[in-house]
């Protein structure tokens, strides 16, 4: 194997496909921390040139972690449709990029080719994309799913109602749910990150959210973002679970750090199909984010974009209702500033869509990252143009439990009105029926949590 190019008369050579992929990655502080980033901007571009000529079969045959050593690799390789793979295996990464961009390439064609891809191919083509490529490419792919309602339809933008509370107060969480609903947030899910992961606490919040959904006949699903085993136990005991959640990593070792395995996720998926109160057939909710593998020393020398793409390969196995990257949550040692957070948000969204999972994004930042609310608003507009399925909805973007900032209830309404999008159809009809929305706009009654004190 020889991976080499000249650039401005200077020769650049890359020792392995893994090294080539890492050096072709856009600047990320995490890759630098791992000691695998390109040493200069020209070396990065040299790597991109070589990568653009790499045939897809070389990526299929050289996963970031060997098949024998890693169950995530096995999931990814085993789910490849070999007929489709054989049609495309001699394409270069550069050709794949142009094929995605071409007007003759329809969304249906991309969805079909998805099934012949591996994570390394998805990451590789992403490295050759500009930001607008990522937006345009993603906008061509719609991935829809159904749980209690339908997500991902063209012309819609959903919002997760994320009513977290620093002490899991049932009243406090319910108050925030009301606030969010009054702005049209909650169609993707009413999803709580609990402080207390214990069974009793999780079951109490499942009951409360289900009661709100029943009382107001809301066409949506509830979810408690506790560890998957806690949710499984809750289901066994008859708790009303709408969707089952878990954070994913792109390697077996990374998932071990989260306390999960493919076997455990298989079991959770089967239980959701058996016990969830929702119609399905999509019952799973996953979160990911660049850098989590490195933070668990589970990246196997691969860059954080490759490891992230592998998360989507694993997610695909479970036909999820929604998947989102929590893009700026991990901190500046992985994504330093708004430039890197913006890039990563666009990359993750594109990769998920190309892989065929219904993607949303938690556009967010922590206070020690070089970013502000303005940067997150920018990213949300870009992602909405890219056809992002949903964002998080938090009161004025301030999550008082997770201590980070993301998109707000206001942002969901603003993005819809700005870009002519609607809530999920079942949910919009519900809002219209209550008089909170008319012709895609909030009414005078909207934005007032006390509306929900009527019942």
């Amino acid at each position, binding site marked *: 194997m020889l991976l080499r190019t000249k650039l401005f008369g200077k020769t650049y050579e890359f020792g392995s496909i893994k090294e080539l992929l890492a050096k072709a990655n856009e600047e990320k*502080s995490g890759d*630098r*921390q791992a000691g695998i980033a390109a040493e200069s901007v020209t070396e990065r571009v040299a790597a991109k040139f070589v990568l653009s000529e790499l045939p897809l079969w070389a990526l299929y045959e050289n996963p970031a972690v060997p098949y024998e050593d890693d169950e995530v690799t096995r999931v990814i390789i085993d789910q490849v449709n070999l007929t489709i793979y054989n049609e495309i295996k001699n394409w270069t990464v550069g050709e794949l990029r142009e094929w995605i961009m071409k007007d003759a390439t329809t969304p249906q064609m991309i969805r079909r080719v998805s099934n012949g891809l591996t994570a390394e191919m998805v990451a590789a083509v992403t490295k050759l994309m500009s930001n607008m490529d990522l937006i345009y490419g993603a906008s061509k792919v719609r991935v829809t799913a159904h749980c209690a309602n339908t997500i991902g339809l063209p012309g819609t933008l959903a919002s997760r109602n994320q*009513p*977290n*509370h*620093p002490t899991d*107060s049932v*009243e*406090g*969480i*319910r*108050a*925030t749910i*009301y*606030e969010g609903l009054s*702005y049209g947030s909650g169609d993707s899910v009413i999803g709580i990150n609990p402080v207390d992961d214990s069974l009793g606490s999780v079951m109490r919040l499942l009951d409360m959210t289900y009661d709100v959904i029943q009382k107001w006949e809301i066409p949506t699903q509830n979810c408690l973002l506790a560890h998957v085993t806690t949710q499984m136990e809750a289901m066994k005991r008859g708790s009303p679970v709408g969707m089952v959640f878990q954070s994913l990593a792109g390697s077996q070792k990374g998932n071990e750090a989260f306390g999960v395995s493919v076997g455990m996720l298989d079991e959770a998926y089967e239980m959701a199909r058996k016990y969830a109160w929702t119609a399905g057939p999509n019952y799973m909710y996953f979160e990911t984010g660049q850098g989590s593998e490195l933070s668990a020393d589970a990246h196997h020398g691969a860059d954080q974009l490759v490891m992230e793409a592998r998360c989507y390969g694993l997610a695909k196995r479970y036909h999820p209702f929604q998947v989102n990257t929590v893009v700026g949550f991990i*901190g*500046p*040692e992985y994504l*330093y500033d708004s430039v890197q957070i913006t890039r990563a948000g666009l990359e993750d969204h594109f990769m998920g869509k190309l892989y065929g999972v219904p993607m949303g994004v938690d556009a967010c930042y*922590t*206070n*020690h990252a070089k970013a*502000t*609310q303005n940067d997150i608003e920018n990213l949300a507009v870009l992602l909405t143009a890219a056809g992002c399925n949903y964002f998080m909805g*938090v*009161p*004025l*973007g*301030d999550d*008082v439990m997770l*201590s980070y*900032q993301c998109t*707000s209830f*206001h942002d969901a*309404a*603003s993005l*819809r*009105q700005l870009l002519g999008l609607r809530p999920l159809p079942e949910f919009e009809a519900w809002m219209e029926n209550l008089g909170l929305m008319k012709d895609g706009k*909030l009414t*005078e*009654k909207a*934005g*007032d*949590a*006390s*509306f929900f*004190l*009527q019942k």
Partner: protein
Amino acid sequence: MDQNQIEAIVQAVLAELKKKEASQPTSTASPAPVSTVSGVNKTDALIIDLPDPTTPEFRNAVGVENPMNLEGLLNLKSTTPARIGAGRAGPRPRTKSWLLFQADHGVTQDAIYGKVRQEVLDQFGLFTVQTQVKDKAEYLLRPDLGRLLTPEAKMLIGQKCVKKPQVQMVVGDGLSAAAINNNLPQIFPVIKQGLEAANISMGAPFFIKFARVGVINDVNTVIGADVVVILIGERPGLGVADAMSAYMGWRPGPGRTDAQRDVICMITNNGGLNPLEAGAFVVELIRKILKYQASGVELKLKTSEDAPERPPSDVL
């Protein structure tokens, strides 16, 4: 257009003209449009003198115009620190709540990029050493370097500190200089006097610039204390920029992790554990670690066999 409509327009135009006349200066000779009301320059008369919008009174105000149930909305608001009941201008937030958000983010940035004041360190005779981090950007990018002291730092510590005390206290800036500036003057004397009262020996305390919690492992390769305590600034949350934590471990050294440490967190006068009370908890926890010769998970295991001995700090 009928006669009534024309009449209405004429009236409106006349009214507008009258308004303009009233606000015109009497002398048109003036070169600049300085408006005066009864002889006083209008700009000079302009006074904007705002109360602090970050006080609870203002934070708890409802921004919803004409809520369906105002009392109910106030009750909802009282159940959570989340920014609900803020109201809207079209789909966007109202001006005051947006500006308050920016203020709350602003103090976090000032805390992270701020400096620990020398007089605060001088007050308790703390000398300063530095980790292998060169500047704030590197501090944020390379947590590993924030856990290692420079050779010069180790030499200075070796010269200035007594070896093998029972307790070695260090102070680190961490992610909030404000946490040290605001809390150290209160917490430090409580810990010092508490240890003295309990006849526990304490080494010479010092300040570590660009520190991560794990630096206590490296500190103890020089000191060899039974317990090392670091008071460090935490990542600021919106509106709470000065939260400090006290991490401590039994005989820290290379390879020891968070699992082998105990922590008292959210030490701040702004909605957390006040630093005086926290100081007492720190002393209590140190006594426990010394008694059981263990910290972190191991301490939990040992004390669960010995339930009646649990001091109140166990809840933390």
